């Protein structure tokens, strides 16, 4: 990151090659279509390039930081759209399976993804839906309450329980929450 902060394009290219796929995947999940996902990913990576000094290693890994930029800018974009795409009914496609010859780093990231998907699989559907509407679709808690016809307190409670259950999954598996 210090090289990127110093204006090293090669270091930025390496960072993009390592995290571009995960960032684009998140952007696509949030925006729902290719062009908007591309624009979001580009916007987020330019933010990374121009604000590398904002990275704080003590707050988490570079990947977490890059993905949080994609997420925050994605929420801004979703909220600024006059008629935004509603993504709550979107059904996730099956993740492509890794090949045995795949590079180890990719296998390692896939392992973390599988753990996260397993953790999400332990959530009751009503908790998962609320987390997805908030995180991927950019709805506020009040909007989710209106959308689902639930009391605001119920929405907040399900957010709380959903996050707690994800943490408990990692505690029970005796592995650290990926950062």
């Amino acid at each position, binding site marked *: 990151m210090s090289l990127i902060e110093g204006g090293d394009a090669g270091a930025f290219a390496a960072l993009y090659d390592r995290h571009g*796929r995960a960032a684009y*995947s998140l952007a696509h999940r949030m925006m729902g279509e*290719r062009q908007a996902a591309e624009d979001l990913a580009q916007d987020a990576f330019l933010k990374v390039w121009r604000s590398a000094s904002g990275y704080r290693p003590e707050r988490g*890994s570079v990947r977490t930081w890059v993905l949080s930029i994609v997420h925050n800018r994605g929420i801004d974009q979703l909220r600024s759209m006059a008629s935004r795409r509603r993504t709550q009914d979107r059904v996730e496609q099956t993740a492509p399976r890794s090949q045995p010859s795949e590079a180890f780093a990719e296998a390692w990231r896939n*392992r973390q993804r599988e753990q996260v998907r397993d953790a999400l699989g332990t959530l009751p559907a009503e908790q998962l839906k609320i987390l997805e509407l908030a995180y991927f679709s950019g*709805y506020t808690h009040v909007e989710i309450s209106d959308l689902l016809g639930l009391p605001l307190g119920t929405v907040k409670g399900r*957010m709380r329980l959903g996050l707690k259950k994800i*943490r408990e999954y990692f505690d029970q598996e005796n592995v650290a929450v990926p950062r």
Partner: protein
Amino acid sequence: MSPMDDKSFDDLKEAYALGALPDDERATVEAYLALHPERQGEIDDLSGVAGLLALAPPEQDPPEDLRRRLMQVVESESTSPEPARRSTSSWFGWLGDFRNVALGAAALLVVGLLSWNVLLLGDVQDLQGEVEQARTSDQAKQPREIKLGGAWAEQGAKAEVTALKDDRAILIVEDMPSVPEDRTGQVWVIRDDKPEPSGLLDPSGNMAATAITTPLKDADAIAVTVEPAGGSDEPTSDPVLVQEL
């Protein structure tokens, strides 16, 4: 904007971590955090868990065009150009060189096999002795022991890293599954998704031991893969032993 109390903060912190607050409430939470920095840790913790959702979507390759467009902007603002990527032809050339080196090494290996076995046995004994010595020394009264799981462990291998206080670490694998003669176990220490080559695991009988050459401090995980003899710069196969740290 009215100030927030502890109860309201508790009520909104999960929604804040998920990015599900409207701008005015988000600003209120941030104003509260500025006055109560001792509660920032709760937000960091919740944000870490919420951030895991970013890993859930199915992976998709970004369009090639995206990289090209990004690099055009970045290079125009850069102080140094991107280094040229290794061309396909040079990659294959490197592979050819590697094969030649590997063939030569294999011939030498056959000639020196007997003495090599003796050396390996000695190495294992030396490393085991080093562990025992460290366990009893004042410098490392409480060595950290890390058991590794994975495919080899499921086949009955017992793999354990002993991490000593002075940042040395040793991996010992008992009942290790057989590895083809032209392959070797290679240890990797993973930090920020990047595996660093950290020692070769050449068996002596059904046992192997190696000093881990990369410090484990702040590492995310340790793993072993099966690689071509002599080891690889980057892993070429999935891990057979792995443990998060």
